[in-house]
């Protein structure tokens, strides 16, 4: 033990000295295989603690929008890097997220299929009322005894909820998140039975039987098809034992697999970009679910995102108002600014143009509601409440989120929108709005930071070149003619080895990383985009880390990181 102690102290001194000598603020990547799994699906013998966060909307609003926000600001924690990120600046597969479309593009069939589940088979039997959430619905089992949450569209807005669920869930699934799935289907009132044991909670507290009369009364307030049939969206029951929501801050007590504070998960931080793309109003812990599942004899917690019925222009029971995607429920700063300027300060959504657009869109597309396209500005998008993970999203996280969003091609979006079974006009607009908003996100978050991907080192023994793909150029969000790379090479201890600036020529670029020698090298790449007045200011850097691999006698890429 004494020996171990000496070794430990010696190593601490060496490591400390090395750390002090290294380039300030930049730590070295080890020369190791890249982590593509978080290994957070180890067996957990005892189900961790459950919670009721989904039923505590006001608490979560006050806690996250006031208490946690004040704490975050006063903690002056600055921009903290996400922790579920590997050496290639990607999010490894976990029980939270497993990259799909942006790393392994799905076919249009795969993307339209979404997660695997059997669609409901008629007839349906109501087994329980829907006690949470605003949308009208019931818990039902189909002819095969599969259980679903079935939600309906509000009267006058056929498709408002069902399209949002069907498309929204598929998009989140294709991006890599765990979702239950959703399918649009139609049925007649005669296909619907009520189980004699079915109950609902009146006023959310008093258990009452679900009667035929109640069902008829509830169905009277929903949208019907011209032939009297009912269009609905069926969401399969999540497998396993549900344990309440996952929070957007901290970790779940009792779950040893839950090692990373949720606010420091990029997959949660950058989910904001998807929520903004789809204009999902309620993206906090209220609409998440943890389930204690069993896979191959192991029990662990899997984390789901739920309820996208307030996506696009839907506010679930009516179209979103202009304020819905532009304001948190609690806005202390803005409210005080309005108060003390006597209303001279105005939110963007208060403009006359926004009002006219709201009136035009809600009238023209009642199935979609207020889902602006060209005027969408992700910088001013705000859901119902501040979400701790979203509030900590850095430019680097947002860039990753934009990678997810912009990975959806026009063909894929066409296939996704088709699953909503909307009218031709509504489908065309939804597709258009998704494409336009995707591209706005791409331009907003992929231009300010060097969109360096797939870096490789070419070391011929005399000269080292680093080559990479420029995703902003590849996806059309930056043009080579307006883009120049500002390259700075250092040796890992902060000593400059060279600088250069070169014009982009296409979606693939190579830059010089100096001559041979040394053990470490950091190639910092920033993009300078012409801003109309000439060359603009260089943006945030992406840094490719190279390390000398002695056994192969060459530098290899060991890491990719970016400014936060």
């Amino acid at each position, binding site marked *: 033990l004494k020996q*171990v102690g000496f070794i430990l102290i010696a190593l601490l001194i060496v490591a400390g000295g090395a750390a002090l000598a290294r380039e300030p603020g930049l730590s070295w990547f080890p020369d190791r*295989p890249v982590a*593509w799994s978080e290994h957070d699906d180890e067996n957990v013998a005892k189900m961790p603690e459950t919670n009721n966060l989904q039923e505590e909307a*006001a608490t979560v609003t006050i806690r996250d929008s006031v208490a946690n926000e004040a704490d975050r600001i006063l903690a002056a924690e600055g921009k903290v890097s996400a*922790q579920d990120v590997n050496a290639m600046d990607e999010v490894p597969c976990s029980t939270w997220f497993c990259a799909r479309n942006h790393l392994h593009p799905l076919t249009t069939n795969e993307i339209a299929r979404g997660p695997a589940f059997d669609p409901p088979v008629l007839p349906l039997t109501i087994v329980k009322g829907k006690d949470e959430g605003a949308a009208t619905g019931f818990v039902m089992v189909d002819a095969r005894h599969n259980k679903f949450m079935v939600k309906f569209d509000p009267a006058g807005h056929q498709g408002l909820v069902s399209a949002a669920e069907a498309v929204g869930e598929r998009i989140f699934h294709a991006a890599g998140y765990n979702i239950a799935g959703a399918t649009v289907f139609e049925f007649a009132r005669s296909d619907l039975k009520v189980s004699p044991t079915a109950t609902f909670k009146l006023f959310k507290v008093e258990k009452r039987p679900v009667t035929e009369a109640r069902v008829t009364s509830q169905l009277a307030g929903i949208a019907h098809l011209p032939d009297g049939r009912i269009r609905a969206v069926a969401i399969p029951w999540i497998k396993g034992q549900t344990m309440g929501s996952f929070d957007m801050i901290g970790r779940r007590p009792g779950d040893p697999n839950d090692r*990373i504070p949720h606010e420091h998960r990029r997959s949660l931080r950058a989910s904001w970009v998807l929520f903004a793309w789809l204009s999902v109003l309620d993206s906090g812990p209220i609409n998440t679910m943890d389930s204690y599942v069993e896979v191959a004899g192991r029990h662990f917690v899997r984390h789901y995102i739920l309820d996208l019925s307030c996506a696009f222009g839907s506010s679930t029971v009516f179209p979103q108002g202009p*304020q819905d995607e532009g304001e948190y429920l609690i806005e202390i700063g803005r409210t005080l600014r309005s108060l003390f300027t*006597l209303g001279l300060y105005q939110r963007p959504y208060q403009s006359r143009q926004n009002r006219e657009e709201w009136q035009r869109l809600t009238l023209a597309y009642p199935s979609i509601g207020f889902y602006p396209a060209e005027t969408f500005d992700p910088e001013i998008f705000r859901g119902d409440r501040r979400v701790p993970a979203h509030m900590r999203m850095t430019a680097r996280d947002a860039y990753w989120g934009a990678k997810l969003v912009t990975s959806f091609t026009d063909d894929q979006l066409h296939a996704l929108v088709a699953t909503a079974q909307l009218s031709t006009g509504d489908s065309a607009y939804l597709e258009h709005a998704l494409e336009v908003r995707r591209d706005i996100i791409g331009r907003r978050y992929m231009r300010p930071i060097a969109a360096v991907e797939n870096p490789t080192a070419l070391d011929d023994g005399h000269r080292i070149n680093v080559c990479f793909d420029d995703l902003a150029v590849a996806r059309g969000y930056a043009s080579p003619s307006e883009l120049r790379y500002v390259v700075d090479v250092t040796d890992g201890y902060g000593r400059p080895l060279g600088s250069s600036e070169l014009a982009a020529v296409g979606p693939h670029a190579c830059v010089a990383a100096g001559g041979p020698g040394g053990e470490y090298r950091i190639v910092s790449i920033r993009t300078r985009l012409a801003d109309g007045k000439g060359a603009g200011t260089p943006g945030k850097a992406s840094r490719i880390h190279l390390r000398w691999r002695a056994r192969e006698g060459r530098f290899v890429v060991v890491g990719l990181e970016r400014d936060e």
Partner: protein
Amino acid sequence: MTPALILAALLASETTVPPACAVPETERAPDPRCGETLDGRATREPPMTATRAALEVPRLATQVVMWPIVHGTEAVERYQLIDWMDAILTTDDGLVGVRPIIHYSTSFLPSGGARFFYDRLPAASEVAGQFQTAGPDVMLAELDLRGPRRWGLTLAAIWNRRYDRLFAGIGPHSVDDLEAAGQQAARYGSDNFGAELRWVRPLPRWFTLYGHADLQRRDYTATHVVGGPSVSTVFAPPGGCAAAGLPADCVDPAQMPGFASGLRIAHAGATLGLGLREPGRERRGAALLLGATAAQGLAGDPSRHATFTGEGIVAVGGVNRMVVLRARAAAVQRLGGGPIPFDELISPSGDTGMRGFPDGRFRGQSGLVGTAEYRWYLTWYLDATLFTDVGTVAGPAFSDIDWSRWFPSFGIGFRLFKSPGGAYWDALARDEIQFAYAPDNGFRMLFTMTAF
């Protein structure tokens, strides 16, 4: 291997080390099970800077302040107190229920109670009402039977008891005037009982006709009052009650006509409204109301008079910022031989007029109030209002009006809105709190809130 990894390995050896961690690092990817970060680098805590250290105290203070708020809200939600209240106070069909209500207006006792509704009647008829109290000194009960919407008829029964009502003489008397006369604002009590029929009839274009008729009985007292000296002390007859041939604790009939005998009276009247204001939250546009009401004493009450009212409103702007100008004039004209009871005089002060002054502070045979308001948007469920009211009272038909005696008040108010769904400009005003200041009266707070 970094120190953190060595420590992790040592700690892990005490428990269970996943077999994967035994593989040399260079041959496997970083693994959180082995105490490693996913990018293989050491975790770095943000340094403790001077700024961070300085902010620790306010941070702790904020945590202490927010803890009970967050956990109190959590307890309310966890035990579903609001849901239970809703369930307890509402029938299963949601058509019958009770809701709490509180009201406060400085100078008067705060009251609380409930409003209720019974919507099981056919043709969208409704029975609704409210009961508010502050103990035996304040009782406000109203029961409304609303007929089918197309009829536009409401029958109301009202009991309104307050022992803190205010009287400060007749005429535009400032505090200094009252003090110079050895007087001050005084209190009286009354039990008012009434039955009223209201009728609303939309007319072509933008016109609406409002009709009303009522029977009222009001009994006054000067012996049991709260909130200040009794009117029997301040407005006693010169020389005392005995000299005037009145019982003890009397009030000078010349100063408060009708007090001793109470009021037995019937009213009937009509108002023509021209409404050019927009619906919802904006209320932009103009409105004009012109009304006349005749009053006839019953059961020996000699009262006989007519009241004429006029009100004009102009609202310019929109939901974001709006200026509202309002002018209101009213006059009561004697038609018979008896005096106009003090309680039937025009009183322009109070929550809907000169807000810096309590109800009853000014009385006269005519009265004028001008209001200018600036309203602006704070958030979709809240707006603010800066207002100034100025008003006065005068003799019959605005005679003797003293143009140098206008009584201003200023204030700020906040209105809460509830959204019917959709756009913020369609939100409906619900509760309001106002703070008013009048140089001749001081500060007042006006507040009404209904729960869920």
